[in-house]
């Protein structure tokens, strides 16, 4: 791989050719603020927060978009850049309801973090603010465009990652806003309700509905607000409150893809599912099942013990007894009518390894090739 050398804030850096300035800065521990950037998406260059000064360049360059050239001398921070960044955040805040206390994104909101960083509580630019209706026409995605900062991340993730393209911008100028075709409710569009737009939205403009009407979400909001207020990382806050382990990293069990999940747990109940960015097979992307299909964990209808049919009725049993029964029945069938009278159907919800084992078991132990998998259906 061809390497290039650049200088960022006086620090000599080396990077593969084709890297953006932001890639190199991140790799070298230099923090450049961004809002419209998401590593899963094509660069966009709209929020202008990542503008940097490059020696000899005619204009400031967006670090997320501009590829670094060999020998580039880059400044990511100076008085002018910080002044511009402050103005940009102030402009965004001037059309944003700064009622963070009641916002479910508080504590994780990228705009809130920048406003904190630049010490902006309210904008000095008074003027018109948007007053859009809250859109909650479907059970999954809630949209509050009053909080939208026009970063275009929802539009790009829907088009580039999901390949669906439910959103695009409508209107121009100050009135420009993302929307569905003809402002249709999302259930009348090709939306799959994967919630990818929720995962990328930097503010509280697009949020998840499934857990919103449960009291626990209010508790979660409260905790996050406390985190934001005390400027304390969420994990530390949870530890301080004796709620350790409230985020559990696990692998999604819906299919064999292996997407990583963070289960947010309060009071031993899952209140939200997210996926860590750029980690594991999913790289932070989830489908509708992975993101929203977790109510079953706490369901009282969930099977927690094996059931054995006795006199036509299913009765709870111990695992050992149940497995013994299955083994006995399999042996009997094999003996009586031959191994090919047995067939095994395995599940896509099991891991690859488990599926491997079940086919090995079927072929080597039972002695038949009658093995299949539900994903064929």
């Amino acid at each position, binding site marked *: 791989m061809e390497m290039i050398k650049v200088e960022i804030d006086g620090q000599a850096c080396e990077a593969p050719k084709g890297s953006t300035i932001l890639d190199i800065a991140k790799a070298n521990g230099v923090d450049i603020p961004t809002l419209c950037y998401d590593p899963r998406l094509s660069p966009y*260059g*709209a929020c202008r927060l990542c503008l940097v000064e490059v020696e000899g360049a005619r204009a400031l360059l967006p670090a997320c978009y501009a590829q670094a050239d060999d020998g580039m001398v880059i400044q990511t921070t100076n008085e002018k850049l910080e002044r511009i960044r402050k*103005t940009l955040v102030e402009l*965004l805040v001037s059309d944003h309801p700064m009622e963070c206390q009641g916002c479910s994104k508080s504590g994780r909101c990228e705009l809130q973090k920048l406003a904190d960083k630049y010490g902006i509580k309210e904008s000095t*630019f008074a003027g018109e603010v948007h007053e859009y209706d809250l859109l909650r026409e479907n059970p999954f995605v809630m949209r509050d465009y009053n909080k939208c900062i026009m970063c275009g991340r929802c539009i790009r993730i829907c088009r580039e990652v999901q390949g669906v393209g439910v959103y695009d911008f409508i209107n*121009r100028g100050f009135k420009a806003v993302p929307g569905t075709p003809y402002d249709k409710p999302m259930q009348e569009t090709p939306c799959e309700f994967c919630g990818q737009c929720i995962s990328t939205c930097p503010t509280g403009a697009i949020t998840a509905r499934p857990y919103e009407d449960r009291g626990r979400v209010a508790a979660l909001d409260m905790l996050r607000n406390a985190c934001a207020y005390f400027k304390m990382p969420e994990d530390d806050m949870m530890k301080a409150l004796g709620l350790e382990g409230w985020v559990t990293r696990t692998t999604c069990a819906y299919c064999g893809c292996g997407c990583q999940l963070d289960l947010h747990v309060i009071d031993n109940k899952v209140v939200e599912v997210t996926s860590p960015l750029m980690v594991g097979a999913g790289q932070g992307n989830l489908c509708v099942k992975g993101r929203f299909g977790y109510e079953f964990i706490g369901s009282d209808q969930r099977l927690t013990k094996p059931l054995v049919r006795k006199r036509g009725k299913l009765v709870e049993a111990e695992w050992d007894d149940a497995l013994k029964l299955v083994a006995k029945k399999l042996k009997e069938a094999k003996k009586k009518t031959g191994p090919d009278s047995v067939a095994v159907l395995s599940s896509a919800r099991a891991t690859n390894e488990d599926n491997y084992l079940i086919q090995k078991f079927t072929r080597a132990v039972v002695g038949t090739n009658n093995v299949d998998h539900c994903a064929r259906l």
Partner: protein
Amino acid sequence: MSGNGDGHKYKVVLGYGTCGIAAGATAVKDALEEAVKGGDYDVDLDIAGCMGLCFTEPVVEIFDREGGSVIYGDITAKKVPQLLDEHVGKGQVIEDWVVKRSEDPNACEGDFLSNQLRIVLRNCGKINPESIEEYMEIGGYEAAKKALTSMTPEEVIDEVSASGIRGRGGAGFPTGTKWGFARKSPGDEKYLICNADEGDPGAFMDRSVLEGDPHTVLEGMILAGFAIGARQGYIYCRAEYPLALKRLDIAIEECHQKGFLGEGIFGTDWSFDVKVKKGAGAFVCGEETAMMASIEGQRGMPKPRPPFPANSGLWGKPTNINNVETFAAIPWIIYEGGEKYAAIGTEKSKGTKVFCLAGKVRRTGLAEVPMGYTLRQVIFDVGGGIAGGREFKAVQMGGPSGGCLPASKLDTQVDYDQITAAGAIIGSGGMIVADNRTCMVDLARYFLSFTQDESCGKCTPCRIGTKRMLEILERICEGKGEPEDIDKLQNLAADISAASLCALGGTAPNPVLTTLRYFKDEYEDHIFNHKCAAGSCPALITLSIDPETCTGCGACVKVCPTDAITGEKKEPHVIDEEACIRCKMCLSRCPSESIIAE
């Protein structure tokens, strides 16, 4: 309407562009056709594009066999019989209606044209734009034929470079250099785009060229396509120009028939074709990256550069984009030679530039002048000075991206560098002239409201920044300005200029910055004294009638929407300040200029 061959004593040509049609040329055309139907007149009828005489449309030019001609202005259907009877029938010129006579080109309003040097507009108003034969009769397509059959692409680029022509769309980048980049950019598939998405308020030269001489633009594109190695060209023309689109379609069809477009053109093995893409009315689509997004079928929103179109443009392929006016000059440059073009103009700005004179100038219309003319020459010698004999106050150049220059800058030469140094830009060539009744704060407010409306909304500084600037200006115009507003405007303008994604946002603060530079006292007057000296901002003025000059004609009474004006016939009238809403309708109607706004 077409000529029926040679041999007639006179040829009557009607200016039939959108401007002429808007002024009533269709009725004149019908009247002319009706009048000659009987064969009583020894005359040929023909149409042409716009001659650029906006101030006196509809325009008719009558040629005699000796090559002499007379241009008549303000022709109506009613005047047609008299015109034909006297001029064609009796050979008598109707002096009162004359705009220009070939015998005495400076007389009447003739100096509007004789003070110009027309290269881009050389055929506009002279040939029928719907006839490729008329274009070819005067040397059309000779340059393309010459280049394709006897020159290499590099030689064409060298000739264009030698001419020194710079992009006429606004940025003024040297055309030859740009073509060189596209030529050298690796790739078998390249595209050429003609930017005909003219959208600056007060700019209409591209429309006039497309309506008046579409073949020149096509010929320029054929040459450019050959030079850079593009086999497909696009003309991105706004849908608000239906006549230009119609004439382009006709011209492209004619070219296909003649073998000038399509496979193996001009008998060579080179192929080049042109498609027209209609723009749906977004100003920002004049920005090249937004335009390419629009051609690709996406929402017209700009992308950061680099990568530049020459490396990664339309569908990711090397692409070259030039403006209509640039393409229109290319055939002349190839035919006459780059050196001849470079002999015109100043050291760094060569050739001619078409300006659109609009606003409070006496003679509005198209003015093509050599680079190096002073603003005074353009506005006073060509434009005839200020309408109504008022005082010149400023000229807004380059539309919403440009700036306002005051009287002290009138001797600035029309030259990319000099105009930029003065604080404006040549831009696409709009010149909106303001007189002493124009409020400069209001003018800045107007342009900012335009850019705010037309912002695509992608980047933060343009979407919200220009909105906040606009709100401050609106406040000042309403007399609610605050002392710190000027600083606020200046700081915000600096950040918007530096941080915007494309030139629309980056240049949007310019009208505010130049008016602040040259007319700061007007801003201060609004903020501190709540006065609008130009008598323009409704919230800051009162209207009254000068009893000394009022003739009591009652014209004002008729137009007043709130019945605020009263008075006896032939006696001085008065305005009831309470009832008056300061719409200034009376001001525009008063024949004795007795209405005082202050």
